[in-house]
């Protein structure tokens, strides 16, 4: 066991998967000689060379397409997109090609690519560097979308994503790259599917994914000093959703809140409320609450930015609202 940061966990997963299988390659802007914007591939260029750690030009749509084409003949590319905002440029090859080729070919051709990209607000990066977009990917048939909340999942899910035969989008977060966790030294894998109860509770389920799990955990801490026992559920996979684990938790606590960093409209929260309504409506004792970003492009000014993005306090207050305490 040793403490390891999120970025180091990703780096270790790359290293092990590349050592394990010569068909695994990584490609992206500045990932090679420069070592990666968040250091996720640092040192690997020297170890694996320019044929396997590929510095690409700033051509997101086509280098993603090249990764997809390579995956169609057996390669296992890990494609890094520097920021999820830039993934918008790659939507044609990702959504029109990778997500559909297995289906359009009647199951005869597959595209086992991994696309890694940080989505989320950092510090005053303004509207064009603060998109979340998870909701857009989770609404696309033919993709898997996972959202590791910490180093253990970042490592274990990336390794599974490389070996899985489907296109997998791994959504990371700029504010989590330095987050640390104790991690076993031995190799392990974390499954791509399955929500996880990260804190047991009785009175309310706080549902989060990616960074918002941490907001839920902080809120749960505060609720505990108020005598409220909050359960925290990490969705982990946005596509497919683990409806079973969500249902079981809500049937236990009878109340829930969903916290997302994205805008609310047609978002993760609306989907979670929908599936809970369909699966266990009568288990609910209270109206749910959605914690989400304001419906604005993310502003630069730090006060405005803070006001636009949900905080642990917002989750705490939302929980009190569900519980009828305010």
């Amino acid at each position: 066991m040793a403490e390891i940061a999120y970025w180091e966990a990703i780096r270790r997963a790359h290293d092990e998967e590349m050592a394990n299988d010569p068909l695994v390659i990584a490609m992206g802007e500045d990932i090679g000689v420069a070592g990666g914007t968040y250091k996720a591939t640092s040192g690997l260029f020297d170890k694996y060379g320019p044929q396997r750690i590929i510095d690409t030009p700033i051509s997101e749509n086509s280098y993603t397409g090249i990764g997809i084409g390579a995956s169609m003949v057996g390669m296992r590319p890990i494609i890094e997109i520097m920021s999820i905002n830039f993934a918008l440029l790659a939507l044609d090859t990702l959504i029109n090609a990778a997500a559909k080729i297995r289906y359009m070919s009647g199951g005869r051709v597959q595209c086992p690519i991994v696309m890694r990209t940080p989505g989320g607000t950092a510090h005053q990066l303004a509207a064009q560097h603060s998109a979340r977009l998870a909701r857009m990917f989770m609404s696309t048939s033919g993709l898997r979308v996972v959202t590791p909340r910490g180093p253990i999942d970042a490592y274990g899910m990336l390794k599974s994503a490389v070996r899985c035969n489907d296109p997998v989008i791994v959504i990371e977060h700029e504010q989590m790259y330095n987050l640390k966790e104790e991690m076993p030294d031995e190799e392990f894998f974390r499954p791509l599917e399955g929500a996880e109860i990260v804190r047991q509770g009785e009175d309310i389920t706080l549902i989060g994914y990616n960074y918002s799990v941490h907001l839920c955990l902080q809120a749960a801490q505060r609720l505990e000093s108020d005598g409220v026992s909050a359960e925290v559920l990490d969705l982990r996979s946005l596509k497919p959703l683990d409806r079973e684990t969500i249902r079981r938790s809500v049937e236990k606590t009878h109340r829930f809140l969903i916290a997302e960093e994205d805008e609310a409209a047609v978002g993760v929260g609306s989907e979670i409320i929908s599936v809970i309504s369909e699966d266990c409506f009568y288990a609910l004792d209270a109206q749910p609450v959605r914690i989400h970003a304001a419906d604005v492009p993310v502003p630069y000014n730090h006060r405005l930015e803070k006001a636009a993005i949900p905080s642990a306090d917002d989750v705490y207050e939302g929980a009190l609202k569900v519980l009828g305490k305010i």
Partner: protein
Amino acid sequence: MNDSDKKRLLREMIFYRRFEDRTFEAYMERKIGGFLHLYTGQEAVATGVLDMARMGGGDKADYVITGYRDHVHAIKSGAPAREVMAELYGKETGSSRGRGGSMHIFDPTANFMGGYALVGQPFPLAAGLAMGCKHKGTDQIAICFLGDGANNQGTFHETMNMASVWELPVLFVCENNMYAIGTHIDRSTAVRDQYKRMCAYDIEASQHDGMDIETVLEASKKAVDYVRKNSKPYFIEFMTYRFRGHSMSDAKGYRTREEEQEWEKRDPINIFAGKLKKAGLITDADIKAMEKEIDDEIENDIIKFAEESPEPKVEDLGKYVLDDNPDPRWIGPLQQ
């Protein structure tokens, strides 16, 4: 190229012409739905280029990829014609199990990696196929066929740049028929000669007559050999013409009958048949017999197979979205 090869190529081109004509009829009978883009008039290009490549599938053969006008490219790559027809009929026995249709023929057993509807999307996919071959150390190459209109997509510029920088073994074949649906190239594109655009990427390029299969064969042999030997991209442009409308519902109001007639004089099948007749290799009666044989095959084997094949089952609607037999080690469920 010996005499029997020449006769074979003529037969292939006639077969492709009749195949496409027959799909047109089936479309009119509403046996085929969706969009249907026919290759009529351009046969010498795919036939000639791919005859110079390694066809047939497997780990020695080259990879082929193209847009939505893909039936002939698929068959020439080695996809069984009856499966291509069954795909157009939307049948379970089709090349893509009835899930893709005319624009999305796939046959990985023939290394035919698909037809794509997004104009320009195959550029990067082709470069990726080539990257895979290069990475694995084989001497296979990727061959990408696209139209003149596709060259105005960002993927064209992005991919040419990367294919050049990374020295990928990919042959880009530009089938310049001077129209993107109803827009003439002069109204959409700064230069008519597409091969000239390659100087920006330091890629070897050339332009040839795409209506004369002997020209296509000769130029393609050089291009294919260049890509394979040097592991570098090459861009080859063929000037050609599509004789039919862009798709089924096309009144062709954007071009004149005179222009069409000028090009019809250069019908690739007539040009080649004329040469073979002149050389005494074939007679009109031979060609008649050939056509009869082809029509019989299309009717009694290909169409029959498509007609009699079963539809996909509605219960199978959700198959092929993701891996249907995933490994639980990577997928889960998660042990709580």
